[in-house]
């Protein structure tokens, strides 16, 4: 029997990147807020302290900061004709677990999506006509525009102290930045990171080819910065233990460095760790949330009544909780009806690795977001006529951390083991670098999330089932983009190159990116979106679902900058409109 707790104003499920911001702002406005986090408390000291922070096996190989799959995982299949099987060990993506969520071990690339990304369908139809989109493509407009989000991108970037160079200030193109980005109201809060050798060579070659390279925006920041919450993020020391690690310097912006010092002082906020939320409880009519039920580390069940519930966990768990709780109609791909689980998408990453005989790159001197990029081949920044696909991705020569368990490039054709392999790895570990392409991924009728009929979590609840594969659009795009990147690589003059477009069937096994999107998408139409443009559930208006679960499809960028912007965007609607008059914010 569940123990019924004292009611609160707001129950927040998941205390990561979005949950910490929501909690801080709402607690400060006078609401009683409870944050429910299934994992542990974690902080820079002692959890990421030297020298133990620099342990590649522990943090990358054994997933120290990531989801414990023994308790809960997902099942996966490429298409509905297959039987989905559990993801038994982490591979393709690495969700977090514990306070701070995946924003503890993230790489820190903090992009804005292009204005085009928010109007993918309407702009594609306007420029190219219906023939450009695959018949089963369900990519759509977001219901929110770049211009509406600009202030919120800005606020998030200033919260996290992002290092970068503006390319478009209020409509004016600024040399050295990304000329393709939407107009921004002001410069980045901190200047770009230093330039590594790989990026410098890429920049030189790209400029000679007429492209306009710029430093990638990074949350591992170039100099100490104090944000609006009074939290100080330190200067990055380029140690290279960044993505998949907690930062020992407090130099990577995260909930720990940017928000928690303030949040934990809020009198109206209570954090409960080891609180695994099993469902959102609804009233008899199913149109109003009355609280959440969670299980603690001793197996005790608690019912937390709340006036409002914010789902702020990872993409996959946001969608799963909606399905487990009956919030919104589950998506049915056969009938093409329902909304929860619809438009699951991902990313289409590819790469070109450059090998040299006589140049040393010291790629272990690095930061998650350190690199030079070009954006000529992203979104609709180039003419797609006759190409047979939509979308694109940014290219970058990144120095994000070369550690030898994970990063050991050898030229294609080298045996996987033995003396020849040993010679190649000894030669090229320090004489190679990659150009990576963060390819977009469209949404399709057959790619979706629902509840698995067979496999269950440690509490006996159904796992989330993922049905996903990339389509011809993504494969054609990846071939085309990777070829363009190979031309830049060639101009740099390597002795050998591995050109690796993404054209094979999607597999859950090798790491690709923790950029899962969709399943609880935002939109203007309640028949094709689970939440309205303010991330408010159409079906249960006192539930907001915050995160990349709201992306109708994924752009050619890392998603976190847009997740941060959507958080402040939804927060403003909650504070200024919803709290005044609780009820639907859109119709």
């Amino acid at each position, binding site marked *: 029997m569940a123990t019924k707790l004292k009611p609160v104003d707001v129950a927040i499920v998941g205390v990561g990147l979005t949950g910490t911001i929501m909690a801080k702002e709402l607690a400060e406005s006078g609401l009683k807020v409870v944050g429910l986090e299934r994992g542990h408390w974690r902080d820079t000291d002692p959890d990421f302290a030297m020298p133990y922070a620099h342990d590649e096996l522990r943090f990358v190989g054994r997933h120290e900061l990531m989801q414990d*799959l023994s308790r809960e995982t997902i099942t*996966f299949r490429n298409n509905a004709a297959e039987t989905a099987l*559990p993801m038994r*060990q982490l591979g393709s993506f690495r969700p977090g677990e514990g306070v701070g969520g995946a924003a503890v071990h993230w790489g820190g690339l903090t992009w804005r999506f292009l204005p085009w990304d928010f109007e993918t369908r309407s702009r594609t139809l306007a420029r190219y006509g219906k023939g450009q989109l695959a018949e089963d493509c369900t990519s759509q407009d977001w219901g929110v525009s770049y211009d509406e989000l600009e202030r919120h991108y800005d606020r998030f970037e200033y919260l996290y102290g992002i290092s970068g160079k503006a390319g478009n200030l209020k409509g004016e193109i600024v040399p050295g930045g990304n000329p393709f980005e939407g107009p921004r109201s002001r410069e980045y809060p901190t200047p770009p990171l230093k330039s590594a*050798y790989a990026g410098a060579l890429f920049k030189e070659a790209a400029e000679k080819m007429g492209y306009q390279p710029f430093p990638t925006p990074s949350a591992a920041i170039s100099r100490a910065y104090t944000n609006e919450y009074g939290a100080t993020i330190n*200067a990055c020391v380029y140690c*290279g233990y960044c993505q998949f690690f907690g930062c020992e310097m407090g130099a990577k912006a995260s909930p720990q460095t940017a928000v928690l010092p303030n949040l934990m002082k809020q009198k109206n906020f209570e954090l409960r760790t080891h609180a695994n939320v099993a469902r959102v409880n609804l009233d008899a009519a199913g149109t109003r949330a009355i609280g959440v039920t969670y299980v603690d580390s001793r197996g005790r069940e608690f019912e937390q009544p709340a006036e409002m519930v914010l789902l702020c966990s990872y993409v996959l768990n946001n969608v799963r909780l909606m399905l487990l709780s009956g919030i919104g109609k589950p998506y049915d791909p056969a009938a093409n009806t329902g909304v929860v689980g619809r438009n699951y998408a991902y990313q289409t990453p590819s790469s070109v690795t450059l090998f040299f005989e006589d140049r*040393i790159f*010291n790629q272990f001197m690095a930061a998650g977001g350190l690199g030079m990029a070009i954006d000529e081949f992203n979104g609709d920044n180039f003419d797609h006529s006759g190409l047979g696909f939509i979308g694109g991705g940014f290219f970058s020569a990144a120095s994000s951390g070369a550690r030898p368990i994970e990063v050991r490039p050898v030229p294609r054709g080298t045996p996987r*083991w033995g003396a020849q392999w040993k010679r190649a790895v000894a030669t090229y570990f320090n004489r190679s670098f990659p150009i990576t392409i963060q390819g977009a991924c469209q949404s399709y009728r057959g790619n979706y999330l629902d509840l698995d009929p067979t496999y269950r979590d440690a509490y006996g609840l159904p796992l989330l089932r993922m049905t996903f594969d990339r389509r011809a659009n993504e494969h054609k795009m990846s071939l085309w983009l990777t070829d363009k990147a190979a031309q830049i690589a060639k101009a740099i003059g390597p002795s050998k190159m591995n050109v690796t477009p993404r054209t094979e069937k999607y597999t859950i096994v090798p790491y690709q990116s923790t950029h899962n999107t969709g399943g609880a998408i935002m939109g203007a139409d309640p028949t094709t979106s689970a939440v309205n443009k303010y991330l408010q559930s159409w079906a249960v208006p006192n539930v907001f679902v915050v995160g990349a679960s709201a992306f109708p499809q994924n752009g050619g960028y890392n998603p976190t900058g847009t997740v941060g912007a959507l958080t402040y965007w939804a927060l403003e609607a909650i504070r200024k409109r919803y709290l005044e008059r609780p009820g639907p914010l859109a119709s």
Partner: protein
Amino acid sequence: MEKSPARRRFLKSVTAIGGAASFPVPTLAAEAHAQHGARGSPQTYLFLTQPEVAFVEAAVARLIPADELGPGAKEAGVAYFIDRQLFGGWGTMAKMYRQGPWPEGTPQQGYQSPLTPQQVYRIGIGEVNAHCAKQYGNSFSALTAAQQDEVLRGLDGGKIELEAVRSQFFFNMLLANTLEGFFADPIYGGNRDKAGWKLVGFPGVAAVYTAHVEQHGVPYDAVPVSIQDIVDSVAEVDEHGHPKHILLGRNDRGSSHGD
């Protein structure tokens, strides 16, 4: 081993003098620490039996052989590393989803074996040795290097079929663990004397690189530093706990630190 505790203390005290330290000293100290991790010879094992140790040592010696470039996986203690990993949480799938049913699935669906890594090794080694006895009249570890390579190539690619575990699955696990053991911090028992890091030029625990990252194309030949070196104060650290790397091959060799 030849390095007594007294010798170790001596090396530490010499290193602690700091400015007087020259390149061979930290290297020797590091060796002492690798032995420290291995707790002397003969090594003790927590999971693998002696015939299994013989198999793993022989196999990893072919996967990463000792040659003119330096020690191989066997010399780097990779069998010892694998034993420790199998004994611990990873070997028993502590953080993996373990509920059935267990159909084999597609390659895209990844790890679907009901066997723990402990069981994969136990069964895999037994079956490969049985194959070797039938084919060559001897266990794997007693075969010639050429025969061992033939067997490993047969497993890698699935030409040799095993009964209770897929041969490619077993081989992939063995190879992945070998690479981990060769390149992980020596505190796990492999990468002895930082052989893996020295081979590729990886400095291990990072220093502050702010002053170096823009020195494009300039080699950074640091004496690699392990977590143990810092815990034991063999490596000097800055106020944030980053080691001060000792750089080789520079004019200021021996006295300059990597910042």
